[in-house]
């Protein structure tokens, strides 16, 4: 049935270094699938990639409305890319709501592909439009290609006898085919996906229909005169190795499994569903044959407490949530700190406060994880900088948790959790072990067991139930150092508070020093953290290329700060701290180093743009003087 996949266009092919395209439509239109397929196909073509899926919190917002618009942006290039791109080369809009909510990001001259079948009066009404935007004079600013996608898709699948609804559902594959033609993408991987998902051979009409729609879209591009040329993007020069496209949440799950492998442990993952963290649970629960035990608890508190119970039993205990769930876990995190047991707490941040913006990104939980517990209760805080870095940072966190015997918090965010990039597949045989010992003998000359006797890092022994002679009780009440007996002694409490703080400080001895990208001293240091890495790096590199004296220090360890951070900061005249919050790291940096750092802050549920960061860098470096300590992003 299948014809050979056409692989080359007969029209002119123009080679470009990179393309940014956004696909948007109704949340039921399959835009996320379209975006994921385009991403994987581009990754397989050897391009460097970065993605930004952007979708509403509602599963099915009212059809055709602006609230229901779902988008997926991807940049693929023959050079290194660290962001999904600021400005679009092309926008695909499947309906009027998608068009009007996204057109602002398409510059003049940009390619605009719309499904003209969905611009009927009823569609305009759903999008709250009085005039058909396709008939507005502003459309002359774009290379507008009106495609009757719905009709052509129906024609393409007509012979398969699908229902109207089923046929209509194939239209995202038609759009995909057209985009694939436009950017010289190979359809093989997507055809493999279709066969895998809907069944191969002629037995599955849905699979055949999707394939036909895909090929029809491709053929349409090849045929119509309005599209005079297609584009070619050469492979990027990545470090040699085997790569696969990885999403942040999947990388987090893989990192946990690597950490378990390196330490000879099995994962206990206690969690309660919450956006945007749930995909880590979905990923891990597939790997029961690795000994992974996932527990979907009755609530966030039960999730973390069950993990602590598992940790007491000697397992690798993990809990994960987003801001609202972390708030519920705080009392238990304080207990784990008091029990001095290893525990990983992952916070995939989203827009807050309260329920906030569940599907949008933000970096506003930093203060919560730093200080959101009663009493003097510091904990190590680490933050992933990109989707693939989730894999690395969670292993570092597990190393810290077990070497220091304490809970470690790892911050991710909605942007990197759902975003994807190429990941160099690691060689498992070359992994170094994370050594954990559980004592089997008494540690006190008098033959008793001292559960809070400490080593040189101040870590206590991790004795586990089942071990004869080491029976001991732990609890949330203050305890005497060494014996672990309940103690209300004033001096002992001071001593224990100091010890627990020093243990966290000792983490800096186990972690590498801070690196700087760019000049080692100069006019401006951009100090960033978390998921803004790609945008900050690109902005700094662009500014450096223009001759600006600017360097980037992107912090992955937020508590304790790297031991050389203060010294680095002192080498620059100005410090700029861009954050997707109202200045949380800036407060910590100003407090710790007494430096008059400048903030650049945005809380719109969206990542920074490189342009706005570059403008801020230019503003600070051109004026040469210290600005007001806070300014708003556009």
């Amino acid at each position, binding site marked *: 049935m299948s014809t050979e996949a056409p692989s080359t266009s007969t029209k002119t092919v123009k080679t470009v270094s990179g393309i940014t395209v956004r696909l948007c439509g109704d949340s039921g239109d399959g835009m996320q699938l379209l975006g994921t397929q385009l991403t994987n196909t581009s*990754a397989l073509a*050897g391009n460097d990639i970065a993605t930004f899926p952007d979708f509403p919190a509602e599963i099915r917002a009212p059809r055709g409305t602006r609230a229901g618009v779902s988008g997926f942006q991807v940049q693929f290039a023959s050079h290194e890319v660290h962001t999904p791109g600021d400005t679009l080369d092309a926008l695909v809009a499947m309906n009027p709501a998608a068009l009007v909510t996204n057109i602002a990001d398409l510059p003049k001259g940009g390619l605009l592909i719309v499904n003209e079948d969905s611009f009927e009066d009823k569609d305009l009404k759903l999008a709250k439009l009085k005039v058909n935007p396709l008939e507005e004079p502003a459309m002359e600013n774009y290379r507008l290609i009106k495609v009757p996608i719905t009709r052509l898709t129906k024609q393409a699948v007509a012979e398969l006898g699908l229902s109207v609804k089923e046929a209509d559902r194939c239209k995202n594959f038609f759009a995909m085919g057209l985009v694939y033609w436009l950017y010289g993408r190979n359809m093989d*991987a997507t055809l493999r996906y279709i066969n895998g998902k809907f069944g191969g051979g002629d037995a599955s009409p849905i699979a055949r229909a999707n394939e036909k729609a895909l090929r029809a879209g491709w053929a349409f591009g090849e045929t119509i005169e309005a599209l005079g040329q297609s584009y070619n993007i050469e492979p990027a020069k*990545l*470090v*040699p*190795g*085997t*790569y*696969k496209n990885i999403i942040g949440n999947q990388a987090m799950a*893989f990192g946990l*499994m690597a950490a378990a*492998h390196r330490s000879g442990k*099995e994962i206990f993952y*206690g969690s309660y569903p919450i956006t945007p963290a749930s995909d880590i649970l979905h990923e891990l629960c597939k*790997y*029961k*044959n*690795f*000994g*992974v*035990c996932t*527990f979907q*608890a*009755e609530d966030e*508190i*039960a999730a973390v*407490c*069950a*993990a*602590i*119970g*598992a*940790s*007491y*039993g*000697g*397992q690798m205990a993990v809990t994960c949530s987003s801001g609202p769930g972390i708030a519920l876990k705080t*009392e238990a995190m304080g*207990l784990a700190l008091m*029990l001095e047991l290893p525990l990983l707490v992952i916070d995939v941040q989203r827009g807050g406060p309260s329920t906030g913006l569940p599907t949008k990104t933000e970096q506003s939980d930093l203060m919560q994880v730093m200080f959101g517990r009663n009493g003097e209760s510091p904990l190590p805080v680490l933050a992933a900088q990109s989707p693939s870095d989730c894999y690395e940072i969670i292993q570092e966190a597990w190393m810290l948790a077990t070497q220091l015997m304490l809970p470690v918090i790892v911050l991710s965010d909605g942007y990197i959790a759902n975003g994807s990039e190429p990941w160099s*597949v*690691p*060689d*498992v*045989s070359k992994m170094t072990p994370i050594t954990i010992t559980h004592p089997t003998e008494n540690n006190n000359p008098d033959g008793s067991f001292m559960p809070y006797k400490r080593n040189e890092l101040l870590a206590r022994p991790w004795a586990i*139930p*089942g071990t*004869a*002679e*080491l*029976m*001991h*009780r*732990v*609890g*949330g*009440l203050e305890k005497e150092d060494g014996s672990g*007996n*309940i103690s209300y002694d004033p001096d002992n409490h001071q001593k224990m508070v100091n010890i627990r703080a020093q243990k966290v400080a000792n983490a800096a001895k186990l972690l590498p020093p801070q690196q700087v990208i760019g000049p080692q001293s100069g006019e401006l240091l951009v100090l960033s953290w978390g998921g803004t890495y790609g945008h900050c790096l690109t902005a700094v590199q662009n500014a450096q290329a223009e001759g600006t004296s600017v360097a980037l220090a992107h912090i992955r360890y937020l508590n304790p700060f790297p031991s050389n951070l203060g010294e680095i900061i002192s080498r620059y005249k100005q410090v700029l701290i861009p954050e997707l919050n109202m200045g949380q790291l800036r407060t910590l940096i100003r407090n710790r180093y007494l430096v008059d750092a400048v903030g650049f802050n945005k809380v719109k549920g969206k990542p920074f743009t490189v342009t706005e960061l570059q403008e801020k860098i230019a503003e600070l470096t051109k004026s040469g003087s210290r600005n007001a300590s806070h300014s708003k992003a556009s």
Partner: protein
Amino acid sequence: MSTALPVLKAEDFTSDQDIRWCPGCGDYSILAQMKKVLPEIGVPPEKTVFISGIGCSSRFPYYVNTYGIHSIHGRAPTFATGLKLTRPELSVWVITGDGDALSIGGNHFIHLLRRNVDLNIVLFNNRIYGLTKGQYSPTSVEGQITKSTPMGVVDHPLNPISVAIGAEASFIARSVDSNVKHLAYTLKRAAAHKGTSFVEVYQNCNVFNDGAFAYAQDKATRDDATIELQHGKPMIFGKDKDKGIRLNGLNLEVVDLAEGKVKEDDLLFHDEQASSTLVYMLSRLRRPDFPEPIGVFRAVEGETFETAVRGQIDQAIAQKGKGNLQKLFSSGETWKVGG
């Protein structure tokens, strides 16, 4: 196997910690019975874990020489669940109170019971908040004058046994702190049951709610105020064993055996595997109209949570083989960059 085991004594389960409950507290009796039965249960101290929440009763783990966690308020069932899921071979006890289990921890309590994790939960019910010095609890009776209810409690109390039946607990029992023989027997039955064993213990707080269960404790009244449930036996009670419980339609009633009109065979015979509807009816028996049942309300077998969870892991390994990390990482669509 049994010959090799050293004989354990109550002292083997006694920790070196000073006990800090008020003199005369019912908790002492429960601790003593627990230490008496633990050697008989035969699990060595190193394989036994006591987990508690917050409250007077929750100090319990410090006083037994086993492993233990004195956790946070209401959450003991969750720590126990996590521990049991990863270390199913351990014998786990949850010690809790009426405030801890039914107020702040009500959510975890019902989920522990419905999952049927193989552990034992002992709820010390004294109908009062003791550690915070005398506020009313979810089992305080209507009208009870407490520090936070000077005009009397207006809440309807929760009945722990009824809640447990609602959550479909597989083992449900009640005992009384001062009835040491019955308490020891009940704790042993709980330990022997595979699945979540729930034991409510009427416990006297002699400081803030003294005498709340005097009717069930005093030798003079307890035979008339309580009825001991015995599997397969007719439900007879009273000092002179002259009263019984009979099922009349969908209601239970007290009948007089002395008159001779009602025979033993007419009475309700207790069945630990009876339908939950009947068990629920028993849980509603309250003074002064009825004697309050003590003993094992329900004991039914079912798959335990950890067996099911570990079973899926074993099944996945059997079907797919033990996971290979390199294979997993290298699976799916990959591409090579030269070098």
